[in-house]
């Protein structure tokens, strides 16, 4: 029995619990020490992930977890999202009067659950990881208590999340009832020579799993919680949910559908294609009407779930690296955009309407340039990372014959250009002097700089140093 695939999860969990102990005994006051501690633990975990990079495949814990190249990329993306969320939270919490150290503990615990999802090779681990990452997020969504929107977000997220978990458990139970299996590789082997009598149970179970994971990844028609939760949650948490939670949910989709139910692709590809098309259309379509940045990013997050689902259907040789890179590019651009949004929040309160962004680039061209880069990457304009990511997913879907889906994808991409550009327009072309300016917060500035450089160069670098062969 090997523990290596669990190493990152274990380090992060141990660190988080240690941090919780520290929080219990530390003197009240600034929580910046906790932020430093959380950053250190994240870096340490990143080191552990890096140490595992060379290994092609390690199974462990009675074949319930598995380390493979996708696990590396997913873990990397999740940890990058986590580190950036910590950077963004430091001054945001202080400005909003909610500087409590347990915030970082919850953040790290959620990330640990996500890392577990990245290595899941068994339905039970998928369930465990999903619950593990969700519970801290419910708390984090309501962290801005007593702000009503935040409490509403937490409650909504919790109720719907619990509902989705029930679907997941029931789906797993049906599959287990039909096959006696929870291991995903065994399930795939079983599906190659299925027992006809037990098949309907497996199909029903698979459908329930799709619903549950569709909820987590914010796919239409299970997306309705997203805008309210995103708007109500503290802004760094929203960024974390949009980026890292999305990555973990896609990890679950890859593990369950590409690995476990892979041989039955003909059965689930139709529903997933419908979901993908609907998600792209609704996400991008409704985003057109938003005038609040956080709600815009919520619909953007839904829209990108659609592109990711399309990738799930693609030719795996292109789609799996494509999905990995897409998640990384999406995480950088999204966290970058949220970094700019957090930078706009001062002690005087938070206003995320487009009006608050008007003319900002006139006084802060660096921030304006970075935001333009993030929006261009989310549209998919070269040479940003988002372009190469979209290119690969479109290629993968086209190769697998999903031509109509690719058409939906490119048309919605054009639609998305309009609403992403509105942010650029507000910042760069809005008339008059800005109402407020980004605060000079080094932690936020650092996040903007890192994500900005990453968004600009990563696509080219990734392809230069291996690309598909990684």
């Amino acid at each position, binding site marked *: 029995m090997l523990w290596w695939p669990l190493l990152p999860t274990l380090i992060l969990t141990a660190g988080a619990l240690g941090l919780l102990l520290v929080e219990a005994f530390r003197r009240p006051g600034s929580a910046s020490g906790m932020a430093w501690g959380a950053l250190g633990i994240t870096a340490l975990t990143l080191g552990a992930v890096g140490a595992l990079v060379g290994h092609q495949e390690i199974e462990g814990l009675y074949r319930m977890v598995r380390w493979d190249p996708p696990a590396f990329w997913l873990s990397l993306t999740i940890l990058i999202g986590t580190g950036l969320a910590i950077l963004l939270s430091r001054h945001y919490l202080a400005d909003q009067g909610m500087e409590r150290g347990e915030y970082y503990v919850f953040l790290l615990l959620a990330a640990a659950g996500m890392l577990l999802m990245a290595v899941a090779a068994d339905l039970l681990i998928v369930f465990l990881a999903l619950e593990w990452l969700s519970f801290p997020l419910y708390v984090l969504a309501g962290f801005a208590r007593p702000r009503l929107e935040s409490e509403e977000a937490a409650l909504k997220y919790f109720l719907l999340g619990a509902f989705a978990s029930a679907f997941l458990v029931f789906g797993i139970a049906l599959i287990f009832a039909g096959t006696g299996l929870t291991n995903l590789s065994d399930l795939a082997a079983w599906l190659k020579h299925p027992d006809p009598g037990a098949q309907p149970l497996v199909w029903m179970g698979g459908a329930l799993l799709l619903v549950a994971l569709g909820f987590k990844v914010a796919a239409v028609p299970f997306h309705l919680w997203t805008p309210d939760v995103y708007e109500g949650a503290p802004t760094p948490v929203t960024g974390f949910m949009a980026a890292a939670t999305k990555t973990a949910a896609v990890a679950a989709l890859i593990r369950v559908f590409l690995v476990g139910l892979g041989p039955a692709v003909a059965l689930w590809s139709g529903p997933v294609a419908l979901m993908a098309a609907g998600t792209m259309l609704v996400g991008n379509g409704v985003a057109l009407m938003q005038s609040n940045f956080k709600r815009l990013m919520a619909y953007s997050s839904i829209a990108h779930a659609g592109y990711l689902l399309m990738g799930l259907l693609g030719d795996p040789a292109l789609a799996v690296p494509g999905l990995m890179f897409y998640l990384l590019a999406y995480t950088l651009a999204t966290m970058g955009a949220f970094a700019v949004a957090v930078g706009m929040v001062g002690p005087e309160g938070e206003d995320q309407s487009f009006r608050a962004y008007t003319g900002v680039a006139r006084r802060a061209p660096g921030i304006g340039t970075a935001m333009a880069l993030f929006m*261009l990457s989310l549209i998919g304009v*070269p040479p940003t990372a988002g372009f190469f990511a979209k290119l690969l997913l479109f290629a993968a879907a*086209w190769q697998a014959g999903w031509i109509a889906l690719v*058409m939906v994808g490119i048309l919605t991409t054009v639609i998305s250009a*309009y609403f992403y550009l509105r942010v650029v327009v507000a910042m760069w072309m809005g008339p008059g002097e800005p109402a407020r300016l980004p605060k000079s917060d080094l932690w936020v500035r650092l996040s903007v700089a890192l994500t900005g450089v990453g968004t600009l160069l990563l696509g*080219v670098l990734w392809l*230069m140093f291996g690309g598909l062969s990684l």
Partner: protein
Amino acid sequence: MASFPILTWMLLLPLIGALVILGIPRERVGTIRWVALGTSLGVLALGLGLLSGFDLSQPGPQFVHHWDWAPSIGAAYRVGVDGISLWLVLLTALIFPLALMASWSIEERVKEYMTLMLLLETGVLGVFLALDLLLFYVFWEFTLVPMTLLIGIWGGPRRIYAAIKFFLYTMAGSVFMLVAIVALWLLSRPLTGTGTFDPVWMAAHLSPLLSPAAQRWLFLAFGLAFAIKVPMWPFHSWLPDAHVEAPTAGSVILAALLLKMGAYGFLRFNFSLFPVAARDLAVPLALLAVVAILYGALASYAQDDFKRLVAFSSVSHMGFVMLGLSALNPLGVQAALLQMINHGLSTGGLFLLVGMLYERTHTRDFRELGGLWKVLPVYGGILMVVGLSSMGLPGLNGFVGEFLILLGAFGSAALGPAARGLTAAAALGVVLAAIYILTMLMRVLHGPLQDRWRGLPDLHVRELAIMAPLLVLIILIGLYPLPFFAAMQTSIQQSLSVFTQATLAVR
């Protein structure tokens, strides 16, 4: 010469200039302007070096710089220049310093402005130099961003509307081209292992394998992106808005260079990659071109705004270019290529002149202008020459291009029995051009002069320096076009020979 990657330096130099400008404090406006101008003059110097080392007899790309930057997907950084791109590259290198000189009057956010202009220069040069489809697409889309910002930040009253319209229109076409590029790449993967984005390889090995229907779809996907950029009727409606709202230098670059990217795309990619489809679709293409010629000319005549008039005249002129290209014979294509340069010089010049007038009068409305020759004799003379060049007066450059395009279209085998009718209709466009240009000259320069324009200063040295190279080239090409044809001849003949072979194989 091979050891010095001159083309890569042409692409890098503006980027370096932009980085230098980013390091200059924003108050030092003068320094920023001079650095930008110096950079673009450096590019021009490299361009002249290119011209002196160019081998006329060689049809293929020269000064090639190749680097397999993404081996896992078979994408390469590959730049080169041949007879088709040579003049467009040089036009780009020439227009940018002129546009930057014309931007001296920009006072607001100069640092951002100059940075974007230099980024745009890299983008445009990249489009003309790229010999790899992915690289081409990257540059193609990349030009969109600085141009949108230039229109949206420094433009006129409806700048935001115009900027977004420009972005969305272009993007809507480009994504189809992207899908077509992806499809070609996927088709090439079984043949090469990793796939390739090399259009020369595709033309030789992939195109013959495509069914006529597949060729037609791919032709249309590429063609839509290019047709919007040219713009061909009925995809032109972004153009008047973008041109009118853009700052002067933006209009100049848009007209002189960005529109050429579309026509260049047709010639470089559509015709060589999908020859069968090109042959089949030559007549519809020519028909749209003729509609554009007539529509642009009539719309131009109906304008009261000087800048709008020039914008619509662009639609008409680019119609001539597309007609020449769709003739698919050496004469028509060569003339079309020359006409692209001519249009860059004369319409670019007209936009510059509109801008110079606007800076003095703050109006572009013909109803408020008139009689200006009396107060601005030098301006009037230059406007006359550039206007007549745009009209196609014999002895100036426009005549050579338009006349040979008509000649090429008339004798075109690809256009078949429709050739004569289309040519006759297009010839009507020449007459209409005379009407709207002469009306424009009349309404600006002649007639009663309003009192408030008395005492307007005539062109000063900087403005004369901007116009001088354009005037020299307008007259030079008009009187002695031979060297310009000589450079493009072999490349065009080669690209069309590939085309005729493929067509013959189908017949």
